[in-house]
């Protein structure tokens, strides 16, 4: 969930930008010229994936797939998600320029944790390991993002206490659905283009 402009206090906005800038710096350092078009195309792909609405009970949710992005990109997930969120801010006005730092960090940092947790699992030949990687990356990345958003709202003020709780719980159904999506996607990639999963690590 993107936080809107004007909600968070200055200290959090600046902290978000500093952390995102650091992550982006490391991500760009690890990205050689050869992989720049790839990073851009994956950024477009994740941008488009976030437009996919999947049925969830009586309503529908849109995919986030930051866990999957983390697994495939490692540290490069920072510049890639920064780009995708910047385009969303410019094209659809979701979020905005001052909160872009916070919003990127919320998505990219849990994705990076998912990357380190799932690194080993992707090397395995067993279907079971890939399924575990899919489920793990979904829950770590989505619930991690939900936790960060809630914490930020919580520290912003007394008034947001209940909102923070609701926001955190609202991430649960998304995490469940993406657990399926991530696992099936990883299994597909293993069958169709196994080198992609090797290259990621």
């Amino acid at each position: 969930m993107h936080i809107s402009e004007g909600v968070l206090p200055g200290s959090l906005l600046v902290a978000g930008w500093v952390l995102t800038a650091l992550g982006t710096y490391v991500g760009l350092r690890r990205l050689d010229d050869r992989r720049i078009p790839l990073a851009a195309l994956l950024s477009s792909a994740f941008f488009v994936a976030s437009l996919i609405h999947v049925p969830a009970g009586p309503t529908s949710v849109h995919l986030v797939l930051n866990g999957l992005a983390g697994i495939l990109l490692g540290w490069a997930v920072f510049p890639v998600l920064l780009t995708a969120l910047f385009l969303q801010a410019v094209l659809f006005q979701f979020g905005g320029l001052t909160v872009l730092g916070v919003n990127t960090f919320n998505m990219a940092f849990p994705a990076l944790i998912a990357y380190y947790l799932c690194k080993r699992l992707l090397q395995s030949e067993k279907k079971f390991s890939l399924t575990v990687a899919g489920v793990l990356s979904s829950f770590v990345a989505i619930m991690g993002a939900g936790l960060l958003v809630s914490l930020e709202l919580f520290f912003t003020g007394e008034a947001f206490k209940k909102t923070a709780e609701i926001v955190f719980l609202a991430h649960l159904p998304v995490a469940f659905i993406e657990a399926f999506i991530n696992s099936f996607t990883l299994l597909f990639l293993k069958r169709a283009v196994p080198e992609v999963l090797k290259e990621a690590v």
Partner: protein
Amino acid sequence: MFSLAVIDPRVKVVVLFLFSWGIALSPDFSTALSYLPFVCLSLVAAKGRILKLLKLLFVANTFLLFLVVTMVFTYESPRTVKVGALSLSVDGLVYGLLLLLKSSLILLLTASFLSTSSAFTVFHALHHLRLPANLCQILFFTYRYVHTVKEEYETMVKAAKCRGFRPENSVRTYRTFANIVANLLVKSYKRADRVYKAMLCRGFRGTFPVYHHFSLKREDIIFVVSSLFYFTAVVLWKF
């Protein structure tokens, strides 16, 4: 008549950035409202269609509307109004309206500043403002290919629907969407490879040569000086 479209995009990005922070950090209504005339002037200068902008505002503010509603119902503040079994928080409402105002001001300002330049010019301006070169390239390519990837996605969904796929709450649906996502990724990997090879053929050395350069004109300087003057006036007045 003055138009934002003729202003140097570098200047626009800097002024937009400054004002976004100024509005985002406004502590109360009077500060936030003192930016209103500037936002209105930019809207006029952008010559955008007001209705279209308002519609955009409504969609973009859904997160905030949700925030305001939950705050009104859950904030345990000193001033509350009892309506039947519910207690509505007046402070929650006031606070929520302030957030809504700030967010709307920034959105309108962003829309009027950025809609008057093409996306590529904005990226180009960011490049001149010392954004790292490879980040700029990622931006360029992402913007270039986002429509292509979206078309690919639409084709795949159409194909799935032709085969009788109907989204519902089932593992089968999730598997189908996962296959579509995976296919998008595979196509993106292959396309990235082709793009890179095509660029190598054209002698790509890690940077884009720039043929068109920006130069500050008289209008740009007038614009930036008056904007800065306005901004300082608001900050000093509050200080």
